[in-house]
């Protein structure tokens, strides 16, 4: 019969119209500012740096400025400068850790490749700013958040990471104790744990293949972003 398909279509729209008043499955709008959908635990937006002790957020950063994430980041949006004391010895702490979230594609590869679980993905998505240059360039201070916050947004993952770190610390302590206890034994035996220790050290902070170059070009790397240069 000619009109039967049309009538079926009308019936479906009528069912949806009626359903939208009583059936939650047929009324899907959450009105954003007032209502918010619950984010799944794995949700990721932009990265943040984890620090262990909220008292000294910049001191106890887990990040050792090994620059693996800077190299592996596909859009190259991370910029790290390692902190050195006056004699030039590396303090294995990032002096500058800039992350440009206007370039970041939140692909969490930095989290994946970071051997120290120092960088994790945040769930904060209301970060719009008016300033195009400075506003979206997060410095170490803005990025650094406490481990407790990390537990709050990714509970299971954070628990797993803490367990791994604790177990690693225990292994290290055991190794140190083993190294201290058999001191009087022949030197040969110390070699093995030492190498084991150093192996662990290297595992902890595998310096990039090329040792950090001693000399650094004199000019400051990061032109002051204060006044955005005129567009060419």
């Amino acid at each position, binding site marked *: *019969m*000619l009109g039967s398909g*049309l009538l079926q*279509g*009308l019936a*479906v*729209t*009528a069912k*949806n*119209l009626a*359903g*939208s*008043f009583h059936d939650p499955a*047929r*009324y*899907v*709008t959450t*009105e954003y500012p007032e209502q918010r959908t619950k984010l799944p635990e794995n949700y990721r937006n932009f990265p943040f740096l984890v620090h262990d002790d909220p008292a000294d957020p910049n001191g106890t950063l887990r990040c050792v400025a090994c620059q693996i994430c800077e190299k592996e980041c596909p859009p190259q949006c991370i910029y790290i400068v390692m902190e050195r004391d006056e004699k030039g010895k590396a303090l294995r702490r990032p002096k500058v850790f800039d992350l440009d979230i206007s370039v970041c594609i939140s692909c969490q590869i930095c989290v994946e490749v970071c051997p120290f679980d120092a960088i994790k993905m945040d769930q904060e998505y209301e970060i719009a700013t008016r300033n195009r240059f400075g506003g979206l360039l997060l410095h170490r201070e803005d990025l650094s958040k406490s481990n407790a916050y990390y537990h709050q947004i990714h509970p299971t993952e954070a628990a797993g990471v803490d367990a791994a770190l604790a177990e690693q610390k225990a292994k290290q302590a055991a190794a140190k104790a083993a190294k201290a206890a058999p001191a009087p034994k022949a030197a040969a035996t110390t070699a093995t744990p030492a190498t084991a220790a150093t192996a662990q050290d290297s595992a902890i902070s595998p310096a990039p293949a090329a040792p950090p170059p001693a000399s650094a070009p004199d000019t400051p790397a990061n032109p002051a972003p204060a006044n955005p240069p005129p567009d060419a």
Partner: protein
Amino acid sequence: MSAHPANALPLLERLPVALRDACTSWLPESWRWLANSLLSIVAIFVVFATLFALLTLAERKILGRVQNRPGPNRAPLPFLGIRTYGLAQPLADGIKMLTKEDIVPRGADRVLHFLAPVALLAFSILTFAVIPYGRALLPVELDAAVLYFFAAGAATELAIFMAGWASRNKYSLLAAMRALAQLISYELPLLLSIVPVVLVAGSLSTSEIVEQQGTWLFGVFPQWHVFTPWGFAGFLIFFVAALAESNRSPFDLPEAESELIAGHLTEYSGFKYALFFMAEYFGMCALSGMGVTLFLGGWQAPIPALAFIPSYGWFAAKLLALLFVFMWIRATFPRLRIDQLTRLAWKFLVPLALVNLFTAAFWVLSSGWAGPLAFARWLVAGTLVLGPFLVLGRRLSAGLGPRTYRYA
């Protein structure tokens, strides 16, 4: 006027007429007629202007609800700032339309460009004069009311042509031509579908047609025209033609031409654009009003027991129901192509309407049949309606149909 003596009706029923008389009683007799008509004009315009505003909101709300979303509900009342579930949305649209800049293209024919929306709106409002809104609420008692209604409706094509031509834009002209082709080819089934009603009612006056439908079979079933075989077919043809006349969903080809042309409204902005939409909604209301009057028993109550509800209440309920179906169809169907649209009119609706004439004639001639013959009467009328529908339907959708698929 109507047969019932005025004061025998319940209070609510007499209210509007009583109000009007109260306002104009202090005038001398000769001026009273002028004042009454002015008052009814003001009443019509107020009622249908607010209905237009609410219809735009209702359309978006219904479309939203059909698509499982709330529809507009954020517009706050101007200074109070409280959100009113979207009721302030037409207010917001109105203000936006008024403040938008009204651009007239350089090459445009200024006079016609300005005249087109005004003429379109004027002709569509003219059609409200003959629709009986209630027992005594008929603005103008015309003997040839139905003919007047379609005469005013026919002039709207002139206005659309003016709009298309005046914009001096090739696309508006092409779109205007398409709109005219659609309107003219659907005016025929529209007129042909109401001829049976006039044939049965024996008069062109709308109030008489509604009176005719005032009786109830066995006291329960209303004898509206739509509950007769020819009436049902006539109503469907009328409804499809009305959809096309007011450029609504499956036929909203001219201005919703997303493929190529943005229609004859391309060169209009600001208030003129709003006028076009007001004219479209008025046209839709007028056509549904006439549909209710001719087929759905105008202001007659469906069951005598419910007659205490005032007649204009029934008219409003039926009108809103018909408008809801307009919007419901808009939310569901895709658009027809221009050649399919005209083929549907000339090769399907017009022949069916002509056949419907015969069924109505047969219906009138066989009105004397009683008892078993009444059943035979329904049977013959039914086959006269259904037969051509199936035959023409199969010819129209030749080559189209659900398909079965094989699997590798």
